[in-house]
C-alpha cells in the first residue's frame, strides 16, 4: 500500500514505546519525595532511548527508594535489604543483553549492602546503579544512616548522629576497576536526566549518588543544601555531562573537571565543603565482568553434551 514496505512499516510503528510502556503502578512515595523525580527521569530516558521494556529489568533492595521497580512497566526484582547488587549481577551474568537498573538507598547500599557495593563496582557489569541518598532510613522511620550528618537527630540517635558521615564518593572512587561515578541532586530535573542518561549509556557500572529529598524524615538536610545553592559545585568538561542554562542559574559555582582524571576526581570528592554535581570519573575501557561470566552462553546442545562426555571419559575405568 502506498508503495511502502510492510515489514518496514511494522517495525517502525509497532515497536515505538511511550512513557506509558515504562510506567507501572502508581508511585506511593510521599508528596515532595525526591524519588518521584528520579522515576520520571528514568521513564523519560527509556522512552527517549527506546529500550524495549521486555529486556529491561529494574532491581532493588528494600527501602522507600527500593519500591521503584513496582512503578516500572518492565521486569522488576524487588529483592532483599542490601542485596540488590548481587541479584542484578546474577541477572546480567548469563543474560548480558538485558538492560539492568539498580535502585538502592543509603542504608541499603552503604550499610547492609556494603560488601556488595564494593564488589559490584569491581565487577563493573554494564548496569545503571542509582543510590538514593536521603541521609536517613526512610522506610523504617528515621534511623541514622551511614550518610546522616554529624549531630542529625534520629530515632536511634535522639541527641544526634555520633559519627561523621561516610563519604560514598571517595569510597566508590577508591575501588579498583571503578568506571563511572557521578553525583546529582534530585531537585534539578534537567541535570538529573542528563546524569542518569550518561550513566545508562556508559558501558560498565554507571554509579550515581542521588542526593534525595525526604521531606518527612530528613527535610533539614536537603533544605540546608537547597537554601545554599552556592555549596553545589557544577563539574564542567567537554568529556563530562552537559549542563544546561537552568542548572547554571540554579547553581552559581562551577569548576572544570576532567572526568578521565581519577586523582582529580578523588580530590573533588574529598572536599566535603562542596557538593560536586556532574561526572566525577569515567573510564570507558574498564573490564566488564559479564564478558567473562557470559562465555559459553552460545554453546549448542551438541557442544554441551560433547563437553560433559569428555569430562566423564576422564574418569572412565
Amino acid at each position, binding site marked *: 500500500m502506498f508503495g511502502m514496505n510492510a515489514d518496514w512499516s511494522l517495525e517502525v510503528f509497532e515497536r515505538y514505546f511511550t512513557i506509558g510502556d515504562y510506567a*507501572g*503502578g502508581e508511585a506511593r512515595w510521599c508528596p515532595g519525595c525526591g524519588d518521584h523525580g528520579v522515576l520520571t527521569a528514568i521513564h523519560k530516558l527509556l522512552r527517549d532511548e527506546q529500550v*524495549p*521494556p*521486555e*529486556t529491561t*529489568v*529494574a*532491581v532493588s533492595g528494600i527501602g522507600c527508594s527500593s519500591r521503584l*521497580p*513496582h512503578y*516500572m*512497566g*518492565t*521486569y*522488576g*526484582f*524487588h*529483592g*532483599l535489604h542490601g*542485596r540488590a*547488587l*548481587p*541479584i*542484578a*549481577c*546474577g*541477572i*546480567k*551474568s*548469563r*543474560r548480558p*543483553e*538485558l538492560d539492568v537498573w539498580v535502585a538502592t538507598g543509603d542504608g541499603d547500599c552503604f550499610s547492609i549492602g556494603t*560488601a*556488595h557495593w*564494593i*564488589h559490584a563496582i569491581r565487577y563493573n557489569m554494564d548496569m545503571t546503579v542509582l543510590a538514593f541518598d536521603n541521609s536517613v532510613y526512610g522506610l523504617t522511620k528515621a534511623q541514622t544512616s551511614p550518610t546522616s550528618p554529624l549531630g542529625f537527630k534520629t530515632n536511634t540517635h535522639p541527641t544526634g548522629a555520633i559519627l561523621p558521615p561516610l563519604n560514598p564518593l571517595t569510597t566508590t572512587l577508591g575501588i579498583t576497576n571503578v568506571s563511572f561515578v557521578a553525583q546529582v541532586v534530585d531537585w534539578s530535573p534537567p541535570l538529573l536526566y542528563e546524569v542518569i542518561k550518561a550513566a545508562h549509556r556508559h558501558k560498565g557500572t554507571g554509579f550515581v549518588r542521588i542526593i534525595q529529598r525526604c521531606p518527612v524524615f530528613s527535610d533539614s538536610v536537603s533544605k540546608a543544601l537547597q537554601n545554599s545553592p552556592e555549596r553545589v559545585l557544577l563539574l564542567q568538561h567537554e568529556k563530562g555531562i552537559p549542563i544546561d542554562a537552568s542548572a547554571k542559574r540554579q547553581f552559581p559555582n562551577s569548576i572544570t573537571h576532567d572526568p578521565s582524571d581519577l586523582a582529580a576526581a578523588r580530590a573533588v570528592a574529598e572536599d566535603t565543603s562542596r557538593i560536586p554535581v556532574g561526572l566525577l570519573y569515567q573510564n570507558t575501557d574498564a573490564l566488564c565482568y559479564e564478558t*567473562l*561470566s*557470559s*562465555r*559459553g*552462553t*552460545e*554453546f549448542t*546442545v551438541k*557442544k*554441551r*553434551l560433547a*563437553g*560433559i*562426555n*569428555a*569430562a*566423564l571419559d576422564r*574418569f*572412565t*575405568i
Partner: protein
Amino acid sequence: MEASQEVERAVQSELIHEHIVEIVSDSGEGAQKAGQTFGAVCARMGNGVWTVEIIPAEIKPPARSPAGASGIRIRLGSKYITNMGDEADLVVAFNEQVLYSRIANGAYKAGTILLIENKWRDDPVPEIQAQYKRALAEFKENGLIVHELALEEACREITSNPRVGKNMFVLGMLCHIYTRDVELARNEIATIFKRKSKEVVEQNYRLLQAGYDFASDNLDFRYEIPPQQVREGKRFIVTNGNTALGLGVMASGMELVAMYPITPATSASHYLADVFHEVGGFVHQAEDEIAAIGFAIGSSFAGKTACTITSGPGLALKTEMLALAVMAEIPLVLAVVQRGGPSTGLPTKVEQGDLLASIFGEPGDAPKVVVAPATIEECLHFVVMSRRLAETFRTPVVLLTDANLATGQQPYPRPEPSSEWLAPPIDQTDWDPQIPPYNWDPQTGLSPRPVPGMVDGHYVLTGLAHTNESKVAYDSKSNQLGCDMRSRKLAALANTLKAPTVYGDPEGDLLVVGWGSTLGAIQEAVDRTRAQGYKVSSLHLRFISPLEPGLKEIFSRFRKVMTVEINYSDDLSAPLITRENRRYSQLAWILRASTLVDVDCWSVVLGAPLQPGMIHKVLLERLSSKED
C-alpha cells in the same frame, strides 16, 4: 627384576574377599595421592573400592604429631563396597606419631599389619629415637604385626628427595602386596604427571617398580582379591562425591555456579573451575555466601537456573535468600556438603546436622524440596534431578551431601547424558498478557514462569506477600493463598513419589531408617545382624521434604523403628534425660512428627563416618533390650 620374580614365585598369595588399607603420614607426603591411585588401579581391575581421606586436624600441624595425621583409607573387595568398613587390615605409616590419632579413632585391631618407616630408630635426636621405640613397643603390645622398613633409604637410590617420592614407592609396594597389575599403575602415573616433564614421569615409574621389588624382597605375605563384580559390559567411572556434584551440574545443563569457598564443599567448585568452560559454564566466586546465592537467584530469575554450593556456615548466611527464592518461587539448586556444626564446628569432618536447618531454617513458612543422595553416584544424578524439580515446581531444591560422600571415591556406572538432561533453552516467546505471573493451579500450586525478554511477561518479583499478579498484598486472603499455594507444591511432588523399598524382610522386630551417606554402613550392619538370625531391616530416604509416602504403614510392620544418623541426640541413659525431654536426632524428629510412631534413634557426632561394626553393636543392643 629377575630376583624379584623368583621371590614372587616363592611367596604364595592368600585368597581373600576384602581388605582395608591405610596410608598415614604427615601432611604433604603424598599419602592421599598414592592411596587414590591405588584405589583407581583396584577399580580398574574390577574390584569394589571405597576410599576415605584422613584429614589433619590442623592446617599446618607440626611434623610427627598426632594432630597432623594425614592420609587415606582404601577398602577394597571382591564385591561392591559401600563404606569405609571397620578396623584396617594393613597400614603403611611414615612415622609412628601420626598413628596415635588413628588408634584413638579405633582404626586398628590386633592383627593389623603395620609397615612403618624405620629411619626414626636412628634419628640424631635422642628424644625422637625414644618416642619411636616406645611407640613400637606399645603397638606390638596391642597386637599390631609390625614390619619396620627402610622406605626412605630405598627411595634414596632413585631420588634425592625421598620425602616427595616415597608415595609412589608405597604404591608399588601395595601393587605387589595385592597382586595388582603394575601396568595399570604406570598408566595412572602417566595421567597424574601429564603436565610434568618426561623425566618426572620416568622417575615415578622407577619409584613404583622399586617399591614393587622392595615388597617382593622384604615381605613374606601377599594377597589376592579377585573381582566378582558384574559390570555387564557397562562402562564405569571413579570419582569422589564432590566431583560427582560437579559432573552433575554439567550434565544438568546448568550454566552457572556461584560460590564462596568453604570446606568441605569447595573442591566441587575447584573441579568445575577446571572444566566448566568446556560445556560453556562459569564459576562465580562471590564476595560472600549471601552474594553467591543472590547471584545464582538473579541468574535463575533471568531464566538460567543456577546452582550454589556451600556447607553449614554458608547455609546459615544463605537463609534469607533461600526464603526469598521460596517466597517468589525462583528455581535454584543449593548443594550443601555437610560438615560438623554448630558454628565453625568441625570444618573437615562429616556430620548430618543440617537437615532440620535445611527444612525449617528460615523464619516464616518456607516449604522447599530437600533431597539427600546416599551414594557418590547419586550425587551426580541428584543434581540433574534437582534442576528439573526446581524448574517444574518453581522452587529452591536443597541437596544435602556430606564430607564423607564429598571425599570418598567409588566406581559407579558411567552416566550416559542425553539432551533431555540439559536445561531447555530459555523460552522467549511472547507471554499471554491474560496470564498472571503466578497462575497457580489450585490443585497443585504449580504455575508457568515468565522470563525477562518475553514480551508482555513483565512482572515485579517481590519477597513481600503478593497476589498471583505479583502485586504486593498485605491482606489476609492473599497471604493465606500464597502460603497455601507454595505448600501445595510439596504435596503435588509427594504425590509423584513412590514408597521407599525396605532392605531386608518387609516386617520384623526392628526397622532402621537412615538418609544420606550412611546407606552402605547401615546395610552392612543389617546384613551382619540378619546373618545372626535377627529380624532387622532398613530403609533409606532420599526425599525428606516432602517425605516419601507410605512410611506409617511400613513402620507398622515392625515392632520397633529407629533412625541411625550422624548428628546429635540425647542418650536416654545420660543424666537428666527422660523420654519426655530427650532431644532426638534430626530425621527422628521429622519421622515422629509425621507418622506419630514412637521412632527411636541412635546418633553420634564423632566427626567420622559411621562404621558397620558400630551400628551392628547398636542393633544387637536394641534388639535385646527388654524395654519397649
